[in-house]
């Protein structure tokens, strides 16, 4: 199958959507599909490039307008998108993220060209304020032109069905995944002598509940062997630094700042407990990564978070300072009990592991009840591995592709009817886009568009290149 992933968010920018697109593309390539990624240019990063495993990425020369998104003009990029989609002989256009204007434009062009369209929604939205109302309207119009939508959690599906008025059976739930082979535990990195590290890794913004965190940290003022490690950067960093200063906890609260995604694991393994204070979240990859690294997870119970991990791996609490504080105390207590129960034998094993290769076979007995907390880091990693992996995600996504390929493409009248139903004003853009495509069809007929040169890993090796940049 020939698939085109479209999103404003892709490497070199870093985040949940970027990771999803990258990992999914890699898996689809491994499954033998042809994948190209479409995004806008990031500074010097422009043109056509190949990344790992010959994944072809088009960095289209479009100016960024706001928040790494292009200006949503709906029609201005039609010729470029058409050229790419036809040259690559794409069958399925797969847009990512409701915030990405490029994805929406490509989906419209795809639908008009008679290609199949799939859209993945990565975020939750309220209904209360003006900006939400506007975005929801745009999403509704665009999803009316999409064959199938994918959400990352069941809450996400409810949200998308409500705000974009899509039919329920046209929305699938396929979660994100985490590379458990990358996020492995390493207890030797943890501090000894009864010190407990609490790790927080998120952008330091209001939506991630940093204000809650700022309320929790001072409560540990008088418990000397509890330390905090905070990864990430953002406008709320000043607040945390101020709190740290006022509580005289400079020694014990380490604010690391922004860290590359690959380095996050190195920080995570240093901790015992991971705290997530998000106020809203569709899926939350951070807690899965933390659980995969063997940390006990304490998280606010908002959005899709209760669906992500079984109770044995997570402590869910209300978004409230007291509740989070109490849950952290529970986690500390559990950890202390676990430490003392793991007698000499376990300790000697750990020492051996430091030198030898990590073998998760030598782990303590699994818990008897499903709800009982799993504390052994290696067991956590194993458990997460059984829950999520990218291959499973890719296979399920391919099923969606196969489904939409079988469906008949939207006819022009169907599209016009659908758009007219949700917002007739958008027909202005729609009609312009349609006539532009007609004009382009006249100038550069589809059957005379030259297909892009296929670069397989083998032919690439002939060009004495492996995974470096091509222009």
């Amino acid at each position, binding site marked *: 199958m020939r698939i085109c992933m479209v999103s404003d968010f892709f490497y070199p920018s870093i985040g949940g959507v970027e990771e999803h697109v990258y990992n999914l593309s890699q898996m689809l390539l491994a499954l033998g599909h042809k994948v190209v990624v479409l995004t806008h240019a990031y500074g010097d990063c422009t043109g056509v490039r190949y990344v790992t495993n010959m994944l072809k990425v088009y960095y289209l020369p479009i100016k960024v307008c706001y928040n790494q998104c292009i200006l949503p003009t709906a029609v201005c990029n039609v010729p470029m998108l058409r050229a790419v989609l036809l040259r690559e002989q794409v069958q399925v256009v797969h847009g990512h993220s409701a915030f990405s204007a490029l994805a929406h434009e490509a989906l419209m062009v795809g639908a008009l060209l008679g290609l199949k369209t799939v859209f993945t929604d990565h975020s*939750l*939205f*309220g*209904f*209360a304020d003006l900006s939400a109302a506007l975005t929801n309207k745009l999403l509704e119009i665009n999803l009316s032109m999409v064959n*199938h939508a*994918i959400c990352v*959690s*069941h*809450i*996400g*599906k*409810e*949200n998308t*069905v*409500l705000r974009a008025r899509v039919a*329920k*059976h*046209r*929305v*699938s*739930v*396929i*979660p994100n995944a985490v590379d458990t082979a990358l996020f492995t535990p390493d207890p030797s990195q943890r501090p000894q002598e009864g010190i407990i590290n609490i790790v927080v890794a998120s952008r330091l913004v*209001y*939506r991630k*509940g940093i*204000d*809650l965190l*700022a*309320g929790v940290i*001072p409560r540990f003022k008088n418990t000397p062997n509890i330390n905090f490690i905070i990864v990430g950067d953002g406008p709320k960093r000043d*607040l945390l630094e*101020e*709190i740290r200063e*006022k*509580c005289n906890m400079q020694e014990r609260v380490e604010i690391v700042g922004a860290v590359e995604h690959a380095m996050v694991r190195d920080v995570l393994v240093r901790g015992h407990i991971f705290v997530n204070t998000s*106020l*809203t979240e569709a*899926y939350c990859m951070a807690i899965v990564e933390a659980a995969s690294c063997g940390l006990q997870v304490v998280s*606010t119970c*908002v*959005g*899709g978070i*209760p*669906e*992500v991990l*079984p109770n044995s791996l997570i402590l869910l609490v209300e*978004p*409230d300072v007291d509740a989070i504080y109490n849950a952290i105390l529970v986690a500390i207590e559990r950890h202390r009990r676990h430490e003392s129960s793991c007698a000499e034998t376990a300790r000697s094993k750990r020492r051996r592991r430091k030198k030898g290769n990590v073998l998760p076979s030598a782990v303590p007995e699994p818990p008897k009840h499903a709800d009982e907390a799993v504390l052994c880091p290696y067991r956590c990693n194993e458990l997460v591995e059984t*829950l*999520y992996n990218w291959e499973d995600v890719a296979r*399920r996504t391919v*099923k*969606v592709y196969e489904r939409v390929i079988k469906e008949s493409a939207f006819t022009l009248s169907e599209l016009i009817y659908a758009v007219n139903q949700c917002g007739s004003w958008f027909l202005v853009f729609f009609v312009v886009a349609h006539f532009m495509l007609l004009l382009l069809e006249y100038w550069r007929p589809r059957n005379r568009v030259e297909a892009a040169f296929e670069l397989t890993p083998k032919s690439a090796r002939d060009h004495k290149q492996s995974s470096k940049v091509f222009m």
Partner: protein
Amino acid sequence: MARTVQSKRKPWVKNLYSNREYPDNYTDVSFLKDLRTNLNVRFYTFAEAVAGISVLNNQISCITGFLILYHLMLNDTVAPTSILVPTCVITGIGYLFYRGKSLSMKLLGEDSKTLVTVLLFGYMFSPMLHTLTQAISTDTIYTMTFFVMLFNLMFADYGLDVAMVSKAISLNGAIFGAICLASRLSTSYHAFVLLVEAAIFFVLYPILTAGTWHAIFMLPIFVICCTTLYFISRPVMHLYACTTLFVNFICPLIFVQYQRYKFNIHGPWDEAIVEENTDENLDENL
């Protein structure tokens, strides 16, 4: 699509890892069961709406009153002193009422210091302010006054906590309008009186009404404005009366009628609300 459920299938659970036997686009019966509508929506009665909108009408009447005074001075119907003295007396009474029991000699001293400073500087600068916009044509002045007064209406603080409200823009608009109009008056003493009136109408009066406003106050204000306008210009009086009645009765009626279309959706996807840490409350939270 909900296929015919096989009897042996495990029940569907709302999590992301255990429903392997179900297709990805399966929709369970529990779908949207956490949906709540109109949780915090308040439905207003007609009386409440009428009482509420009178705050806006008060501001409209306040501007009208100021323009009436301007007109009286422009035509020299009333001498500036005979406007200044009564309004000063009323302002004094208003001040006593506003301070009430908390009035003390110290407070009185400080307030009179402010008053003297404002009056002195106002009097000193009034010749300059009087000639500031004299070169501009009268039509331009009136159009400009219309727009800045409109700004005053739009940004005035009606007791709502929304981003639109800006006391600074509102007050600056009104004062700028007053300075524009001052240039049309005959002497700089006239201009001084007009500026004092502007201060009273747009600075002091809103302070007083902010705490003590009651919808019934609108009635005498309306009657006074209408009577004065009756002697100045009939069409303007009709315009004023129609606008006031429309704003005060028709608009609330429409609002109350359309309340039944209120449809506010809440669910687990809503952002949790937490108190944001600001410089003020940072220390008490420690």
